[in-house]
């Protein structure tokens, strides 16, 4: 190979000419170009060792070209020409892996030294390193991304043994006639020709239980995030599992990045292996997950005595060079790889009867199919299907205290939609209480929701769930095929990825002080709080926060006050259970944790300039009050404002002082009612819907905001429809079980959306397409 072929990219023709001329005269083979982007194709085919690039002009594009070159050939040596060594471009370039820079005007002596040094480092470096003796050598042995090499079984063993000396290695082992992932201590332990493992490798990125926070209450209290990880190599990952990891990457690294997952993922090297003897329950080819071109650091194909190894990342390339010997595959070996792969494809026993792109549509049309009810009759709600699934990632969050009851930790552990209590809230309402709705939800996740939200398949067809299900009903393939039969197939659904809202540390609460506490009723109190940082909470009416009491836990609570009223904010809370009763026992001066604000509040722009009809049932007034206050503060922005309030008994009326105030105010048309009067009650009696008759409504001009218990919605909507209000004018706030508030844990899901992200306030139009919202 020629150690001295140089590519010069320089836009100034004079500099380019003189540089090239000088380099040729000193014995280099030189190619020059005016613009990097244009030469990238040439670069990919030829074999340059050194690139010299001027990054002073169009630095962004130039850096992009550099990145691309590095991706094609990770160990290309690059030298940049700049006018100032401290500027950002240079720092950025160093991150990409630039070996040196030259400051313009170019001093030819300096340049010669730098280039000479670079050439020497190439000679000393990876290619002729003593540790790395190649079985053959040639230009193509520079291990670039996407290149394939051959490696003997002995040398694979050598690599693993070398890895074992410096890092934890997890691999596939045989156990009791099945296969599992486990830590290995020698190459001999590996079974790389397995069919499927009992449990997927995703647990090494997202473990069954992990600590998120450590804290201490009382004197010397603190709350600290905990991020634990062990650098490790996982060897033997099949392509379908690699695809599953890619989905988790999308979920946990891109939308509200999850620091714990990221730390673990970035410290994991994945050595994949092609699946040549699939499990009889696998349908990976139907899901397009039997091969993969991405998501691994190295990927092996067993072709008999040797393996073809494909390089996926720079990390993978480095590992190969550092730890073992490899060579170019022979023509015969390349043919054999094709052959074994072809044979593997023929070994799959089951397949989708319809293209996978049609699954979302099939599901959509089968929402009310009796299939769900019938097929789930034998479901044990045992959760086995979701616990073995590589694409399941829902979790629960709990606090655990040490025996001294002062220190503790907040941990998360796997949870999932097939379990009975997954969507049950403190009031006892369970949003998926029957087996059929849970069974259907899981299948919709697998076939539709995930795909639409993240653009990646939600089921990779590994078949683990159907092996694990004692009732024999868990296979998505079976469900998709059964439903497809009933349906005229239509077009594929488009995928919508929601814009991510960035958050720095999504699980650590910020501390806030309780400034005052006021009893509202026997069971309800209102708390005034302020963030300890002195910052404003920055919420919109209708948004919520989660409140933490370390050791007790966390609960979602709406913000009850207007953002226009200073830095403090108010939470009105009904005593329902653990967290809320602990909160009730706190007094002014106490500290609680706050995360948020989360979700979408009321659509302020849509409401502006309109007549408003605000309807609150019971403690629905808590969230609605933030909007009422906001509207009162900017009263001039709105037309007529009516407020209807209903609760069960006079004793349950909350914020009575404000109710009196609204009653007497000319700015707001206020009506209230109770279901059951008591002695001395002179006001209206009856359900809240009666009050709607008392207001004049111009359906074109009026916007409605409703918050109350689930039962109320149905009747209020019926009434509003009778008054001709269009769906787009009606907004409702929904309650769901919530744990994370950031669209990860899965508890608040209504069909394909997350209430904590897209809600809790929805327009009726939106809700019409969400069938689980049952209105």
């Amino acid at each position: 190979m020629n150690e001295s072929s140089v590519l010069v990219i320089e836009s100034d023709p004079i500099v380019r000419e003189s540089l090239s001329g000088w380099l040729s005269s000193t014995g280099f083979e030189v190619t020059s170009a005016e613009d990097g982007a244009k030469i990238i194709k040439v670069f990919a085919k030829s074999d340059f060792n050194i690139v010299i690039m001027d990054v002073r002009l169009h630095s962004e594009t130039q850096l992009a070209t550099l990145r691309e070159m590095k991706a094609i050939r990770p160990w290309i040596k690059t030298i940049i020409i700049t006018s100032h060594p401290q500027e950002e471009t240079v720092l950025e370039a160093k991150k990409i892996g630039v070996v040196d820079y030259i400051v313009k005007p170019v001093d030819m002596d300096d340049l010669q030294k730098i280039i000479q040094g670079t050439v020497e480092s190439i000679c000393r470096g990876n290619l002729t390193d003593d540790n790395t003796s190649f079985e053959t050598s040639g230009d193509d042995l520079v291990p670039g991304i996407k290149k394939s090499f051959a490696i003997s079984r002995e040398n694979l063993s050598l690599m693993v043994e070398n890895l074992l000396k410096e890092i934890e290695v997890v691999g596939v082992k045989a156990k009791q006639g099945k296969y599992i992932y486990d830590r290995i201590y020698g190459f001999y332990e590996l079974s790389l020709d397995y069919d499927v493992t009992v449990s997927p490798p995703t647990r090494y990125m997202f473990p069954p239980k992990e600590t998120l926070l450590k804290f201490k209450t009382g004197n010397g209290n603190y709350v600290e995030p905990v991020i634990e990880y062990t650098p490790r190599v996982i060897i033997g990952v099949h392509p379908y599992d690699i695809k599953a990891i890619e989905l988790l990457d999308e979920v946990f690294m891109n939308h509200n990045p999850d620091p714990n997952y990221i730390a673990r993922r970035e410290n994991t090297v994945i050595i994949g292996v092609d699946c040549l003897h699939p499990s009889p329950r696998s349908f990976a080819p139907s899901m397009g997950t039997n091969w993969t071109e991405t998501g691994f650091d190295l990927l092996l194909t067993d072709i008999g005595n040797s393996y073809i190894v494909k390089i996926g990342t720079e990390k993978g390339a480095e590992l190969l060079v550092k730890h073992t010997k490899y060579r170019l595959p022979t023509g015969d070996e390349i043919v054999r790889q094709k052959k074994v792969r072809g044979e593997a494809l023929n070994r799959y026993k089951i397949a989708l009867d319809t293209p996978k792109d049609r699954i979302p549509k099939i599901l959509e049309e089968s929402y009310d199919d009796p299939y769900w009810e019938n097929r789930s009759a034998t479901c044990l709600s045992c959760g086995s299907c979701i616990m073995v699934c590589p694409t399941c990632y829902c979790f629960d969050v709990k606090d655990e205290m040490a025996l001294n009851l002062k220190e503790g930790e907040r941990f998360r552990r796997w949870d999932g939609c097939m379990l009975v209590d997954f969507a049950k809230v403190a009031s006892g309402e369970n949003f998926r209480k029957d087996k059929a709705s849970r069974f259907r939800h899981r299948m919709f996740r697998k076939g539709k929701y995930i795909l639409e939200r993240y653009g990646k398949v939600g089921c990779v067809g590994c078949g683990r769930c159907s092996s694990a299900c004692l009732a024999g009903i868990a296979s998505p393939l079976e469900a998709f095929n059964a439903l497809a039969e009933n349906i005229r197939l239509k077009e594929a659904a488009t995928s919508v990825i929601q814009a991510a809202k960035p958050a720095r540390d999504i699980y650590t609460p910020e501390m806030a002080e309780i400034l005052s506490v006021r009893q509202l009723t026997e069971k309800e109190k209102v708390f005034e709080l302020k963030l300890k940082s002195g910052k404003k909470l920055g919420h919109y009416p209708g948004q919520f926060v989660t409140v933490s009491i370390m050791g007790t836990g966390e609960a979602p609570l709406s913000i009850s006050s207007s953002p226009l009223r200073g830095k403090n904010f108010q939470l009105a809370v009904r005593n329902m259970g653990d967290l809320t009763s602990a909160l009730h026992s706190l007094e002014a001066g106490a500290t609680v944790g706050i995360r948020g604000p989360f979700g979408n509040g009321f659509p302020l722009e849509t409401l502006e300039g309109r007549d408003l009809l605000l309807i609150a049932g019971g403690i629905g007034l808590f969230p609605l009050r933030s909007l009422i206050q906001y509207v009162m503060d900017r009263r001039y922005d709105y037309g007529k404002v009516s407020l209807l309030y209903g609760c069960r008994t006079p004793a349950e009326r909350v914020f009575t002082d404000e109710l009196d105030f609204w009653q007497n105010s000319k700015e707001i048309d206020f009506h209230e009612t109770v279901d059951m009067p008591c002695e001395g009650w002179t006001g209206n009696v009856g359900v809240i819907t009666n009050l709607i008759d008392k207001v004049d409504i111009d359906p074109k001009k009026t916007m409605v905001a409703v918050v109350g218990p689930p039962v109320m919605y149905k009747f209020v909507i019926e009434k509003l429809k009778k008054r001709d209000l269009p769906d787009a004018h009606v907004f409702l706030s929904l309650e769901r079980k919530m744990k994370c508030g950031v669209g990860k844990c899965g508890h608040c899901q209504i069909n394909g959306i997350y209430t904590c992200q897209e809600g809790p306030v929805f327009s009726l139009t939106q809700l019409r397409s969400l069938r689980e919202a049952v209105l």
Partner: protein
Amino acid sequence: MKPKVAFFDFTGCEGCQLDALNLDAQDLIDLLNGIDIVNFREVMTERSDNYEIAFVEGSITTEGEIERVKRIREQAKIVVALGACACIGGVNCLKNHVPMEEALRIVYGKDAKYYNTIPARPADAVIKVDYYVRGCPPSTSELVKVIKALLLNKKPDIPNYPVCVECKKAGNICVYEKGQTCLGPVTRAGCNAICITSGRYCWGCRGLVDEPNIQSQKDILNKYGLTAEQVIEKFKIYDTCSEVLK
């Protein structure tokens, strides 16, 4: 003020109480910082009827025991059922499957006529129970978990899902795959599927989950070759007052 705690035993092996003391020294000190044990037959001689929290161990098998447990309920603010016998009836319920006279004869031989026994039942068949420390014997960590929860005035973290969840989390190979049977799919988790992890199967010592699919579990046992009698035998561990055997 530290809450005063008393332990009471009914019909059972007292294995639960003994196991409860299997704490290391520091844990015990920490625990005693939070509570005051006033009555604990195995370790203390001093007795007191002045207690707020009563741990009740063993199942209720005689008329006299019914009276006694009711008195405890009147005195205590919080009653905790300790162990499988108190929580679900436990092994004592096995006698419910034979006629009472037969049971007496089996247990006491020819002295049977001097004893009086009623079908064994868990504590909550007689009185309201606030907390449950499940398992046979219950693990120390479970006991500590419940004590911590009641000191913190919150619900203890005892899941309402089956053992299978924890079994899968532990990465176990399902015993059904090996041709054995297991009650994991209807038994309440919280033990980290300890029996399966240590090479056995789940026999249901923690009682049922709230909504068990009994029919489906029975069908599965049948499918794996158990006869109807064997299936009933398997289920005997669960409280006989429940629907399971009907």
